[in-house]
């Protein structure tokens, strides 16, 4: 009585029937091999050594520190971000390869924490880059850090943790906030719009008046002059 036609067929995904399985597998692997770049901006960083070392040992979750932004998956912002530091944080974030996740540890990254009235610290980290997860506390204990990381793993596994796409889709918003703080001439060495095209993530908010402003001021990016330290000399004319 049942014919082959009655078997439900998922039509939304054409092509390889194994794609879903494969996606699931990729997400599983991704969530179990995370490299964190810990940008130790504030006092909250002090809870990371215990979280990493033998007592709490985040390596058993598959999480390890990494030394360079290019190889890292998670950017861990551990505390207050001064405006001067924020520039470096943004440069670092933009250099990371996608998919990338941002965790704001400490109350200071949520709303400035006890530096709420300081002229030198940025208040809301998620105005300048998409944040996947906040771990509030002043400062959060390693248990909280691990709980947060586990939550992120779950969200990566279930495919919810894709706020990095938001940076490409709404680049104009983030750039606008950055320009408001750093001035109109703000420019980073990463070309986000080209990257958004590469990932096929151009959204309605990718381009706007702030990116137009950027184009007006943009200086062409040049490769760095690679020389050894000792022959760095003043240019002679």
């Amino acid at each position, binding site marked *: 009585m049942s014919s082959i036609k009655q078997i439900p067929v998922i039509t939304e995904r054409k092509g390889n029937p194994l794609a879903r399985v494969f996606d699931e597998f990729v997400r599983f692997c991704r969530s179990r091999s995370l490299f964190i770049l810990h940008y130790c901006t504030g006092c909250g960083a002090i809870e990371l050594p215990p979280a990493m070392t033998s007592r709490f040992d985040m390596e058993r979750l598959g999480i390890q520190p990494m030394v360079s932004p290019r190889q890292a998956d998670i950017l861990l912002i551990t505390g207050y971000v001064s405006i001067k530091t924020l520039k470096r944080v943004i440069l670092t974030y933009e250099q990371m390869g996608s998919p990338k996740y941002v965790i704001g540890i400490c109350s200071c990254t949520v709303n400035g924490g006890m530096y709420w*009235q300081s*002229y*030198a610290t940025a208040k809301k980290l998620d105005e300048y880059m998409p944040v996947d997860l906040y771990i509030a506390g002043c400062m959060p204990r390693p248990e909280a850090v691990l709980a947060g990381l586990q939550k992120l793993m779950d969200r990566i596994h279930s495919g919810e943790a894709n706020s990095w796409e938001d940076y490409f889709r709404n680049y104009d918003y983030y750039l606008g906030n950055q320009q408001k703080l750093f001035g109109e001439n703000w420019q980073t060495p990463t070309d986000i719009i080209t990257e958004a095209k590469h990932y096929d993530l151009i959204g309605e908010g990718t381009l706007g008046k702030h990116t137009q402003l950027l184009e007006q001021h943009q200086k062409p990016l040049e490769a760095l002059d690679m020389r050894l330290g000792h022959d760095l000399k003043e240019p002679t004319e």
Partner: protein
Amino acid sequence: MSQELTHWLDDLLEEIEGIKIRRKSSRRVRADVPADALPALLELLQGRAGYIHLSAISCVDWIEDDEFELVYHVWSYESHSLVSAHIRIAREPGVYLSVYDLYQPAGFFERDIHEMYGIHFEGSPNMEKFILTEWDGPPPMRKEFDSEAYVNEHLNWQEYNPPWLQELIAEGGGVIIPPEEQRFSRKKD
């Protein structure tokens, strides 16, 4: 020994005119001097009493008196004691002499004070920006600079009041000072 030493120090300090000495403890002496007598005092302390270490220069903005207070902390490794020399200078034009030729670390402290308070030190080797290299507002530690107004103008703020915290507060724990009472500008009278 220390008793002897302090008497000797007292005698020495008497040589400075207009000096007021207050002994805070056996190892701490506070000296208030007129601004123009400070180099002489430091020279005396360094040359004849072994106070060779300038550990800090601090600055206080007394905006109501229209004055800056500069405090020079010098330490002696021989008598293990600290002398804090206080002077007051006028807020306008806010200029004072550098003590770099007596104590070289003063270069750093003076540069820092210049950046934070806008005081100019004549004869200091470098009055360039120090830490706030990307700041172009007024010197932020001056009392007339309203940090909170600056924050309200340039930065946004968000509440953080999740349900679990509300529960805690309802039980009498958690945050005792609500944000609208901390943020003076948002205070509802």
